[in-house]
């Protein structure tokens, strides 16, 4: 009887599964192809590979043309995330508490890089920083990436800040905490999930960013996306697939580490359970 009455509920569930499945294939299939090609034994890109080997992986891991940019990207990502967090946290607290005038305008301004084409911003930064001789110094790259990643930290921290009971800080004040101590012992620990999640986003955005890096990096400061682009422009070999695999694995390792340390779903929900 039950089998004869699948009904709209079962059909809806089937449709949902189909939808999710198709979406997953669209997202994951190209990645899977890249990861498989990375292990090819051929000296050209073909799918499926005629045979398997680690030669391309070994080649890129030993190639300074890839490893130097990879290190640059990691350092840049860490620095950009750290600076963005240091700037975004006080801004988020001020905006969230509405302790400054124009807090809505300030928020819109700081989030603006999200809706600005990265290439336009990169050009603007290039012209601007060139005046100070910083255009390709590495500092320009950092400044550019801080501007781009700041909105991600700001948004996640702001979401947590807005969820905080304002009387928590007031209670700390009445109990004898100066503003600085109340910030360190109450606000900051409660914002931590948002700061960690936001900085993680910031790192990942910086790690993958191309437009600003392309215009503001030099031969010594080139990031991994720039190096990959340069390589692809001149050769079409499986080295690109191999370095892509290295990059994907690195990101997965970062995510797994954070998952172990904090629990990612809790971070992404970025909300502190209220007392």
């Amino acid at each position, binding site marked *: 009887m039950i089998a004869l009455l699948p009904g709209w509920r079962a059909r809806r569930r089937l449709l949902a599964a189909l939808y999710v499945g198709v979406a997953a294939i669209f997202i994951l299939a190209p990645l899977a192809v890249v990861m498989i090609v990375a292990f090819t034994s051929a000296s050209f890109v073909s799918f499926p590979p005629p045979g398997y080997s680690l030669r391309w992986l070994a080649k890129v891991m030993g190639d300074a043309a890839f490893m130097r940019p990879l290190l640059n990207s990691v350092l840049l990502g860490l620095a950009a995330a750290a600076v963005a967090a240091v700037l975004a946290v006080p801004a988020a607290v001020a905006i969230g508490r509405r302790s400054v005038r124009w807090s809505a305008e300030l928020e819109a301004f700081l989030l603006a890089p999200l809706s600005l084409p990265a290439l336009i911003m990169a050009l603007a930064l290039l012209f601007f920083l060139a005046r100070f001789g910083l255009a390709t110094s590495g500092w320009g790259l950092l400044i550019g990436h801080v501007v781009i990643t700041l909105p991600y930290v700001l948004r996640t921290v702001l979401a947590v800040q807005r969820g905080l009971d304002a009387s928590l800080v007031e209670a*700390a004040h009445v*109990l004898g905490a100066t503003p600085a101590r109340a910030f360190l012992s109450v606000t900051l620990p409660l914002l931590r999930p948002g700061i960690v999640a936001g900085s993680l986003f910031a790192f990942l955005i910086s790690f993958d960013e191309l437009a600003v890096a392309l215009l503001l990096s030099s031969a010594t400061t080139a990031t991994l996306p720039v190096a990959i682009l340069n390589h692809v422009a001149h050769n079409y070999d499986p080295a690109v697939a191999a370095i892509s695999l290295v990059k994907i694995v690195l990101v997965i390792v970062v995510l797994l580490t954070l998952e172990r340390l904090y629990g990612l779903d809790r971070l992404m929900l970025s909300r502190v359970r209220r007392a």
Partner: protein
Amino acid sequence: MKGRLDIAGVVKRYGTTVAVDGVTLVVPPGSMTALLGPSGCGKTTLLRCIAGLADLDAGSIAVDGADIGALPPWRRGLGMVFQSYALFPHMTVAENAAFGLRMRGTGRAEARERVARALALVRLEGFEERRPSELSGGQQQRAALARALVTEPPVLLLDEPLSALDAKLRHAMRLELRELQRRLGITTIVVTHDQDEAMAMADQVAVMNAGRIEQVASPETVYRRPATPFVAEFVGRTNRLEGRATAAGELDVGDVGGRVQLPMGHGLVQGALGLALLRPEHLRVEQAAGAAAPRLAGKVVDVVFAGDRVEIVVACGALKLLAVQPGGSAVPAPGEAVSLAWRAEDLMVWPR
């Protein structure tokens, strides 16, 4: 005894609205004063001014003669329990309770001992390592109380401390708070919109309306001899009679189509508009129209049995008056013609 609180001429404005409009209040050491009033009357703002969470626009606040009105909250050394309790969710109960001591740099051993004593005071022993989210509402309230008391502040501020609890717990905590306050002899200000709560807990009730204090007195005085019609109507229930004073010392109440005798010394000149208020429990419902005493004839509209009392609604002309009698007394049936009587001195009269 320590902890005398003097509030003098306090004014607090938000933009063009005046939240607290020149409040002067003395809280004797070791006593409990309730700030009672409807929402928006300024009672919470006044409490925040005392705590230092809102800046004064005028006036002064002094504890034992020392003006604290200009100090930031962290230098006032007062205790406060917030309406939401505001327990730090990332700390255990013990860490919450120790927070004030930590800010004062109290030694670790002494802090542990004082936290244990404070938690014992509110009967939260054994809950030291729990997080606030693992406590019931009543336990959270006790934890917030322990946190406020651990530094032994001269004055304790309670903002609607019982409003988040269910009715049964609220009644129990009311007595418990009162008992604790007496035992510690700590000067306490409690903000509440619940007149029963204010009456049950406080030595002195300050009834607030529109940023001002209408009356400060003992609960009994506030109830029996309200200074203003607002106080009379906010504290307890009343029946309203409005009319014009006559030459014979009566109030001609058009709505009931009759005259009621005014008490001695009512202060109304002939022809003046007056407002008279009567408490429901001062009205006697009589089947036969007796002699003497001020009274009004009417017809019973509704009889509501409420356990320990019976509420009788009587229509007198266009007005419906409420009389409350002890449960178990003889009650008339709806539709019955009755006579409402009261003692002349129970009529509370003000000029309009």
